[in-house]
């Protein structure tokens, strides 16, 4: 690694993603458990340390406890250091004007002291809710070589939901002439990967302009392009996923269990770091059957697991079948229960013989037909034994056995916690 100029990294990790439904209510997307043992933000942080960048501020706002607990003092990434290291930047009360972060640019502006104190030449603005591996040192080199005020990383638009991305128009030299946010029509080609290298002075000047708006893209980047400032596009050719919706989160996890995964977690030169848990290795019972899956420490598999991701401490009981599913920490799946296309949050109890995500009529797969919607089960919920939950259903956070109206939950329905306990449990916890 050659020396790179002083860079301050600011990671935006405070957003609220309603599209993550029960998964996103208790934690910000960056803190979502991912790939069997990680949180999504681990990718960004690991990229930083592998790129030799170790001055990092993480801007948090929505339900940050889970993220704060995860990051701690940054030990897992070797970021517990005297110089630099990690700082969590939560909004705080000031003498004059106090506000929540009103947007991405406002969040940066409210931390102008941090930016100024760093005396960095460049500010790398990243998003904590993306899954990708990237050497930022290369990006910074490109940024310097092109004497850019801003270099924005472009990625190939994932095929799903084109309206979620911003399309970048650049000439052959990489000079950007347009950034079209979330167009109605699919623009095709390169979209912004929400990874930005700013010349520090340029960014500060823009943020400080009187009347500047709160959004980084609309109020800083698009005006820069419009004013013909030197903005360049740096193409990233590897895997890149935004996991801001239930579907994209699910698909990205499932990418990992494909025969030739597009994202290699095993590269010894670019490992993804995360705080370790002191759990025993995964144990497979005599009757266990497992294929195409990721299984973490502390898991105990006595049934069948196919095309699934199991997080630490998950227990799959005898005769249970888990297919095409994501099951988070310490969830217990009772004997004979069947899960299909389900995302089950932490510490859920699935009663014996329950059928989750199974189409009515037949529990067998409906190959050929379009995949049915995903079932989401919120943290800490309890599914009574022998309950049948149809596809595309949502079981909210902290639902208890008594909250179930019956043993048949139709496809697409929602079960919410009732009673007084519900308010206390979950929603404002923020410690997922």
């Amino acid at each position, binding site marked *: 690694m050659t020396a790179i100029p002083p860079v301050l990294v600011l990671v935006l990790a405070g957003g609220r993603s309603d599209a993550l439904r029960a998964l996103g209510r208790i934690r910000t997307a960056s803190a979502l458990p991912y*790939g*069997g*043992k990680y949180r999504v933000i681990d990718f960004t942080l690991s990229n930083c340390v592998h790129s030799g960048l170790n001055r990092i501020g993480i801007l948090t706002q929505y339900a940050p406890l889970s993220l704060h607990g995860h990051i701690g003092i940054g030990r897992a990434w070797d970021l517990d250091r005297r110089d630099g290291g990690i700082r969590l930047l939560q909004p705080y009360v000031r003498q004059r004007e106090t506000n929540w972060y009103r947007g991405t640019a406002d969040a940066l502006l409210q931390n102008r002291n941090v930016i100024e104190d760093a005396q960095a030449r460049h500010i790398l603005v990243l998003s904590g809710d993306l899954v990708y591996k990237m050497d930022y040192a290369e990006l910074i080199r490109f940024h310097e070589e092109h004497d850019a005020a801003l270099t924005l990383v472009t990625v190939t638009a994932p095929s799903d939901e084109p309206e979620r991305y911003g399309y970048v128009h650049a000439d052959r030299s990489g000079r950007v002439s347009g950034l079209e946010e979330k167009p109605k029509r699919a623009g095709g080609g390169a979209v912004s990967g929400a990874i930005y290298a700013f010349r520090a002075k340029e960014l500060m000047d823009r943020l400080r302009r009187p009347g500047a708006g709160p959004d980084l893209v609309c109020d800083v980047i698009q005006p820069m392009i419009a004013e013909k400032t030197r903005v360049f596009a740096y193409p990233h050719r590897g895997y890149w996923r935004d996991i801001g919706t239930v579907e994209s989160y699910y698909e990205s996890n499932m990418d990992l*269990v494909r*025969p030739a995964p597009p994202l290699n*977690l*095993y590269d010894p030169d670019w*490992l*993804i*770091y995360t705080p*370790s848990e*002191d*759990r*025993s*290795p*995964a*144990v*497979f*019972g*005599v*009757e*266990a*059957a*497992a*294929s*195409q*899956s*990721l*299984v*973490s*420490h*502390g898991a*105990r*598999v006595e049934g069948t*697991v196919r095309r699934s*991701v*199991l997080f630490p401490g998950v227990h799959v009981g005898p005769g249970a079948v888990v297919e095409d599913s994501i099951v988070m920490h310490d969830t217990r799946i009772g004997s004979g229960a069947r899960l299909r296309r389900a995302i089950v949050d932490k510490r859920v109890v699935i009663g014996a013989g329950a059928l989750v995500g199974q189409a009515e009529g037949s529990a067998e797969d409906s190959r050929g037909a379009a995949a049915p919607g995903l079932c989401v089960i919120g943290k800490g919920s309890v599914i009574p034994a022998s309950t049948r939950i149809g596809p595309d259903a949502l079981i909210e956070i902290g639902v208890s056995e008594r909250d179930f109206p019956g043993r048949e939950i139709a496809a697409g329905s929602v079960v919410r916690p009732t009673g007084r306990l519900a308010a206390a449990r979950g929603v404002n916890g923020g410690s997922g």
Partner: protein
Amino acid sequence: MSFVSYAMILAGGLGSRLCILSEKRAKPAVPFGGKYRIIDFSLSNCVNSGIYDVGILTQYRPLSLRDHIGIGRPWDLDRKRGGVELLQPFQGWAETDWYRGTADAIQQNWIRVEEREAEHLLVLSGDHVYRMDYRPMIEAHLASGADATIAIAQVPREEARGFGVVDLDGEDRVQGFVEKPASPPSGNISMGVYVFRTSALHAMLREDAERDTAHDFGRNILPAMVGSGHVQGFRHDGYWQDIGTLDSYYRANLDLLRPDPPFPLEDPRWPIFTPSTEFPPARIGMRAEVRASILTHGTIVNGIVERSVLFPGAVVEEGATVRDSIVMGETWVGPLAEIRHSILDKRVHVGPRARVGYGTDLTPNRSCPEHLSSGITIVGKETRIPEGVTIGRNCRVSANLIEEDFPEDTVPSGGVMERELNVAH
């Protein structure tokens, strides 16, 4: 609150009966149970018992242990007061030398005990697999006013032969202590866990240092203390396994795979701590089968794994089978290879279609029949087994061999593969 806050762990042992597993590492540093080293059990018992000040006495091949312990982070032993310290023999003005025995090791480091002004001292062995809260034992020791208290496990009398055997009276006071007797008087054996009154131990160590003995706790110190002072027994009921031989090592690992394991690794109330590897979760491929086995992070299974323990980064390729075996970190089992009844050390490379631990011929090992006769084949660190080679049972294949070191397609049961031997042929 107990008055014992300092523990010394004896971890210098040569462990020759563990064959090539302990050729390049001290016995307490031998990998165990998928992600642990044997010393993790004693160290975790210490911190779980509230003892955060630990000295580890090392002598033989300490590097692997040193890397493992580091500054003691996984055990929360990286602290300003107390923490963990590796006590390797050192040179000083006088009376320092290599440790002549376990007792001598402590005697040479007595300054550590003195500095702490501790009235009592916990002495442990680093080569046992068990969970134990030392606090009740310490309390019993203090209540009885004994000079020493020995933790006692019960085994069938005929199996007691390899241990320190204790003769207890009706009040569990120790009346006799014999190390490795030919005909054990009872099945009460010492677990290698002791609490000593510091003054009594020091007197005994000084006396022993002057004499021409083995300077060993089991052979010299404890029998002498039983003769001259008050030594109390403390019975411990839980699982306790000495990892003294290849057979006991193999059995203790495979015990973990039983449907109702006698020693469950997962116990949130008494976790076993160890440094973590940064590998992703275990990845199980499309045509894989995994049954009655333990997988750790970083393992990749595309073949069949049954009744086996796989360590971090072990890879079993498509069509390969691993049965009744222990496969250590980053070992690669090539396509269609067959591994049975084997212990493969770290970073072994098993070529495609090779067979290890093959057949039913149980000819004991020709160079160490006393340790390798139950059918286990062992392959040393980083050895590369060529494609298609067949290795029988009770074989010992040394570390760091390369394909060219295997002149024949077959290593018969009881065989020994060493580079020197081949040169001699």
